[in-house]
């Protein structure tokens, strides 16, 4: 029996390869995910343990501090630590913001650069990649990336703003690598001597204190003595523990990536399982005669079952091994790409961990054998007598009662869940219910597949049948002759198309919803903001803008944090200066209700403090002490973009004194070209280095870019599932072609030309592809719509028609592509040889 199976496999190498490829791609993706994240993890661990060699202990504030601000270690503690016995050296690390100025005289980048201290001596962990570390307060270093983007070279003078936005000049003496600090990697960083870092950033306290132990003192010993000296307010770790903790923290990040990628891997494996299931089903059907013969000559049911399972084990093993190799390549490739685009990743060689190998083999094997079990069972039902029948019977399919009952249950449950979710408050719970509903409906469609594939085949085949005459009509017939087979083949494609459509609908809807909100909230052409969001712009800027004839509708907003209500809760309290036609929408009444001594309050403040209109609320102000304000109206911050507690301008000035503008909105006057208006706004902003000008189209563009990026990545990842389903179409077709060898020969004898025969198969594939795509599009649009409803209120639903059309057309084309090889084979076959074949 073993020999028969292996001989059979050897005889069909191409089919074996196609089948294996489906699983191999899935396993490869999963293995690749592990290779990538394992390698990144290993690199992190390596880097952190290198750091641990330098420090013997690290002091950080004890976790669980109440304050919202990042907890810090006061400078006094450093002196205490230095005084502890066994401590050879201790250095505090400073990190704050100090904005680097670009060569254009404006602050560089969208966010202010960080200012950090570069520690001297053996405790220095910063990697200086060129030049040297700053030795005097007049020297500074830049991170490599920022230096490259902003065009600074070692030896030049750089200008940096301190926390009071006063300019200071430094000599750039070196460049450094931010290493794994994501925060610094994002904003860029300027490094100073510790003292200068404190004065530039205004941070007097430290993020952490690093300690070097004296000769002969162990890490544990120095940790214990420091801990004893500092008491429970601070956490003291040995260098090794500290490095481990950092590595774990980063490990958690990579774990998120792993989970995300594995989701796509699972989808791919599901599709691969469908492909395998279908392949084995067809193989069993085709080998009915062979198996009946085996049964005639004495093979038991068990042996027949065993031979199919054995075949699936061979396929599973082969594809898993192939998948692991593929995964290694994928992981290494992804790593290379990520490094080349400058992702802050530690360099390490890709690693194929034993866990990856075991998991890969296991998943590949289990999925393949699992998918082959049902077909193998049906193989055992072949009666020995079947060997004597001349022609293999056509598979007539009748929708069984059980199938209909199950499908109805799935559909009813799925639709019910979705409708229920639509009635829920928008939020994560509703989204999850929609997803569950979608999955159930999908199961229903999967079960009903063979029933709906026939009418669908006739529907999508209507045009091809008229366009391609005989080959077209025969193709439509062929696509419908074995509904179960067609259904499974197309459902594999449906999975990918459904998810792609869903994502396209969601992003399209998000884009539309966002644009609508943006138009409501940002009905202006330009916005000027300080680079650091929590600072302010001098009021003179808004004055200047108001005086320009090209501009109109200048609205300036100010805000500051203050304690509101009886508790310790802080909210933003603000005001605005705007032309009379600026009318933010309130829940009751108009903005005119805002009179001295009153406030309009955002929903979330009302909720947080348990207020209602008419109540009086206490605000602790900087200049006027505690004041009581009457709440005159409320607003929805999504509709009116005001500070949480908005008061009249005169009041605000009295309460808080001179506060800079946090946001200035400007419109171009009618008839002024956007270029001209932009120039004017830029000119007005020029004297204020921290002022950043954005146009509404830019803001929209940024969001669009982010969405497009997301759409591209997800679609790309789902592309794998689609690729696998195409292998499935190719496999089904080539098996069908094999099955219909004599039919094709007959048609050729009757005068069908080779191109016509190829067309016939291509059209069949086209129909299969279109059915899969259509079902996918319907499901994707429906559940994309439902999911969008659960995300926020007032969704502006958008059907991304071009994208959806592209999916359908591409699916059809991909189907045709999948048919190329089988069709060539069929057309090439000699008529005489095919007529003679069994």
């Amino acid at each position, binding site marked *: 029996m073993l020999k028969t199976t292996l001989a059979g496999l050897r005889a069909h190498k191409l089919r074996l390869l196609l089948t294996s490829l489906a699983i191999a791609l899935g396993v490869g993706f999963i293995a690749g995910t592990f290779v990538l994240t394992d390698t990144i993890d290993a690199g992190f661990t390596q880097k952190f343990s290198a750091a641990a060699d330098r420090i013997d202990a690290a002091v950080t504030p004890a976790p669980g501090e109440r304050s919202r601000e990042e907890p810090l270690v006061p400078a006094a503690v450093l002196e205490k630590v230095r005084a502890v016995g066994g401590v050879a050296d201790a250095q505090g690390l400073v990190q704050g913001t100090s904005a680097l100025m670009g060569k254009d005289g404006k602050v560089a980048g969208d966010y202010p650069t960080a200012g950090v201290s570069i520690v001297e001596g053996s405790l220095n962990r910063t990697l200086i990649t060129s030049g040297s570390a700053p030795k005097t307060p007049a020297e500074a270093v830049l991170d490599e990336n920022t230096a490259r983007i902003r065009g600074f070279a070692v030896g030049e003078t750089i200008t940096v703003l301190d926390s009071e936005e006063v300019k200071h000049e430094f000599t750039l003496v070196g460049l450094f690598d931010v290493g794994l600090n994501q925060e610094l990697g994002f904003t860029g960083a300027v490094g100073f001597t510790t003292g200068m870092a404190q004065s530039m950033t205004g941070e007097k306290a430290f993020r952490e204190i690093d300690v070097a132990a004296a000769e002969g003192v162990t890490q544990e010993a120095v940790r214990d003595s420091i801990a004893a000296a500092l008491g429970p307010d601070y956490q003291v770790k040995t260098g090794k523990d500290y490095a481990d903790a950092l590595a774990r923290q980063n490990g958690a990040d990579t774990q998120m990536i792993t989970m995300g990628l594995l989701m796509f891997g699972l989808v791919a494996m599901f599709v691969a399982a469908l492909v395998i299931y279908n392949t084995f089903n067809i193989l069993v059907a085709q080998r009915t005669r062979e198996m009946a013969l085996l049964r005639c000559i004495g093979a038991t049911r068990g042996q027949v079952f065993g031979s199919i399972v054995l075949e699936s084990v061979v396929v599973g093993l082969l594809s898993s091994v192939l998948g692991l190799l593929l995964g290694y390549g994928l992981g290494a490739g992804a790593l290379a790409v990520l490094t080349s685009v400058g992702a802050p990743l530690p360099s390490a060689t890709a690693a194929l961990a034993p866990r990856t190998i075991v998991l890969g083999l296991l998943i590949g094997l289990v999925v393949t054998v699992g998918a082959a079990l049902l077909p193998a069972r049906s193989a055992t039902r072949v009666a020995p007598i079947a060997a004597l029948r*001349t*022609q293999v*019977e*056509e598979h007539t399919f009748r929708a069984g009662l059980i199938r209909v009952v199950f499908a109805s249950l799935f559909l009813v449950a799925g639709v019910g869940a979705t409708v229920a979710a639509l009635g829920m408050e928008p939020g994560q719970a509703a989204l999850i219910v929609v997803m569950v509903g979608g999955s159930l409906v999908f199961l229903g469609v999967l079960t009903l597949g063979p029933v709906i594939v026939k009418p669908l085949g006739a529907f999508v085949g209507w045009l091809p049948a008229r366009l391609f*005459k*005989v080959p077209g009509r*025969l193709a439509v*017939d*062929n696509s419908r*002759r074995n509904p179960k087979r067609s259904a499974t083949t197309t459902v594999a494609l449906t999975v990918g198309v459904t998810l792609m459509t869903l994502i396209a609908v969601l992003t399209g809807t998000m884009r539309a919803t966002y644009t609508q909100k943006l138009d409501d909230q940002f009905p202006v052409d330009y916005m000027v903001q300080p680079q650091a969001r929590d600072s302010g712009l001098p009021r003179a800027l808004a004055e200047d803008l108001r005086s320009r004839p090209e501009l109109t509708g200048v609205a300036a907003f100010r805000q500051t944090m203050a304690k509101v209500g009886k508790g310790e809760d802080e909210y933003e309290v603000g005001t605005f200066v705007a032309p009379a036609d600026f009318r933010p929408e309130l829940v009751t009444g108009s903005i005119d209700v805002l009179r001295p001594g009153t406030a309009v309050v955002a929903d979330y403040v009302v909720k947080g403090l348990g207020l209602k209109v008419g109540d009086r609320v206490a605000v602790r102000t900087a200049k006027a002490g505690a004041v009581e304000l009457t709440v005159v109206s409320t607003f929805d911050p999504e509709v009116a973009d005001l500070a949480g507690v908005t008061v009249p301008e005169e009041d605000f000035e009295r309460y808080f004194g001179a506060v800079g503008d946090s946001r200035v909105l400007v419109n171009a006057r009618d008839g002024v070209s956007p270029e001209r208006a932009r120039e004017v706004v830029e000119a007005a902003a020029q004297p204020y280095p921290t002022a950043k000008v954005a146009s509404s189209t830019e803001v929209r563009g940024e969001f669009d870019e982010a969405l497009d990026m997301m759409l591209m990545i997800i679609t790309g990842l789902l592309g794998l599932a689609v690729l696998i389903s195409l292998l499935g179409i190719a496999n089904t077709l080539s098996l069908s072609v094999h099955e219909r060898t*004599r*039919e094709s020969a*007959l*048609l*050729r*004898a*009757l*005068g*069908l*030309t*080779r191109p*016509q025969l190829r067309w016939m198969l291509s059209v069949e594939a086209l129909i299969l592809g279109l059915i899969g795509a259509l079902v996918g599009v319907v499901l994707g649009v429906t559940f994309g719509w439902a999911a969008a409803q659960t995300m926020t209120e007032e969704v502006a639903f958008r059907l991304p028609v071009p994208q959806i059309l592209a999916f359908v057309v591409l699916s059809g084309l991909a189907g045709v592509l999948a048919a190329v090889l089988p069709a060539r084979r069929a057309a090439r076959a*000699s*008529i*005489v040889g095919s*007529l003679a074949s069994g």
Partner: protein
Amino acid sequence: MTITGEVGAWNARGDAAAAVVARGLTKVYGQGDAAVHALRGVDISFATGAFTAIMGPSGSGKSTLMHCLAGLDTVSGGQVHIGDVELTGLNDKQLTLLRRERIGFIFQAFNLLPTLTAEQNIRLPLEIAGRQADRDLFDRVVETVGLRDRLGHKPAELSGGQQQRVAVARALISKPQVIFADEPTGNLDSRSGAEVLSFLRTSVHELGQTIVMVTHDPVAASYADRVVFLRDGLLVSELVRPTPQSVLDTLMKLEA
């Protein structure tokens, strides 16, 4: 009268109104030591409006000859003419169009497309050629083969004999210059076989159809106007107006 003399006489007479003519036809399968000479130089012609049977022992080259004559397979040497068209030298596309226009086929088994009804199967060659079925001819053919009430059935719902009758109707409907049939009754019992054979003979005599049929069965061969005998890839004998007994006798002689 020698056997070869008789062959020559028929060929000379047949050339005048020959539907199919082969000259010096050879066919070699494989190469070198493994080469099989399936046809070793066959000269034969089939008169228009005649029903000819090809007989011979198994492996004598009957099917090979038929495939070469019908343009289903390439020849190794010699020439084949269907009407005024020379087959050798035509490319695949031209051969396909020739089959479409001028040749009908009936095979031993698997003659019909399982997805099509009997009627659709009958019309298939016309549809492929993009021609309209002649309504009268269709009715006459369907009447002749007695399938009127079976037209809407799929092949799986027809008996073996009915399936072959559909195949005969399909071959007749496009009025081909010649119909090639390879053991059309090989899978049928004698009664169904006799039915199919009488239809073939009727179509020759009433519709003027030319038919070339390969068979193993002396009774089937006796329906033909003429029987030619092959042995080891050579034409060795022939009979005009055969009876089952005379066919059997000739076969015995050949095998001796």
